[in-house]
């Protein structure tokens, strides 16, 4: 496709999903833009721990960007895509803040949806980011990796 590009950003600044979607849809042969925005959830499993109040995201500069670029390349080999955009925030975030954006454009919606979900699933299990949560009692703890994320990633192989 004519407007093929992939761009990965790891940044502390917020992003604007509307601007990103507009950029993904600028080619005449793009008919579909599928996107995902991840947000900091304040509510954990009901009745369990106290609510989360903030999050801190650590990463491995260099390796993180490269591992996301590798994931995007896998998606581009697997589906016919136009443009791909991935933004992941780092540092301290509050409840409701945007964490991650994945946007994929394509001719047809099937490829755009599949590639967008694939990139999110792989990013969750392969890109070196680590979340530390603060709760209402101001206790901090490192978030444990979830089996469901590995199950989600495994269905693509």
């Amino acid at each position: 496709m004519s407007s093929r590009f992939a761009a990965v950003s790891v940044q502390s600044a917020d992003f604007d999903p509307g601007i990103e979607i507009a950029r993904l849809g600028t080619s005449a042969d793009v008919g579909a833009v599928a996107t995902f925005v991840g947000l900091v959830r304040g509510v954990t499993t009901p009745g369990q721990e106290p609510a989360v109040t903030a999050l801190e995201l650590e990463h491995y500069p260099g390796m993180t960007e490269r591992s996301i670029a590798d994931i995007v390349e896998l998606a581009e080999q697997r589906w016919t895509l136009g443009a791909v955009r991935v933004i992941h925030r780092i540092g301290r975030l509050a409840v409701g803040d945007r964490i991650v954006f994945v946007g994929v454009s394509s001719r047809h919606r099937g490829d755009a949806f599949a590639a967008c979900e694939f990139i999110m699933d792989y990013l969750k299990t392969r890109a070196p980011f680590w979340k530390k949560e603060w709760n209402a009692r101001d206790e901090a703890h490192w978030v444990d990796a979830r089996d469901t994320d590995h199950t989600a990633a495994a269905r693509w192989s």
Partner: protein
Amino acid sequence: MITVRFFARIREQLATTELQWPAIATVSELVADLAHERGQAWAEALLAPQIIVAINQQVANRDSVIVDGDEVAFFPPVTGG
């Protein structure tokens, strides 16, 4: 010399972000060496089965070969996204 880096929970457990270490043949030997020199807490942190190791920012394993100048990193399972 090699550069050894630690992230997230491991970085906090070991109170170490990065250190320089004499070049050594494999990841297993590096872990044994660090455990021997730094003690039980290091042995436990670096031998935990779920710990991921990367050499020059590519995921590796315990048998992977290290060469002089390499960057070796230890970190827990990732939780981004």
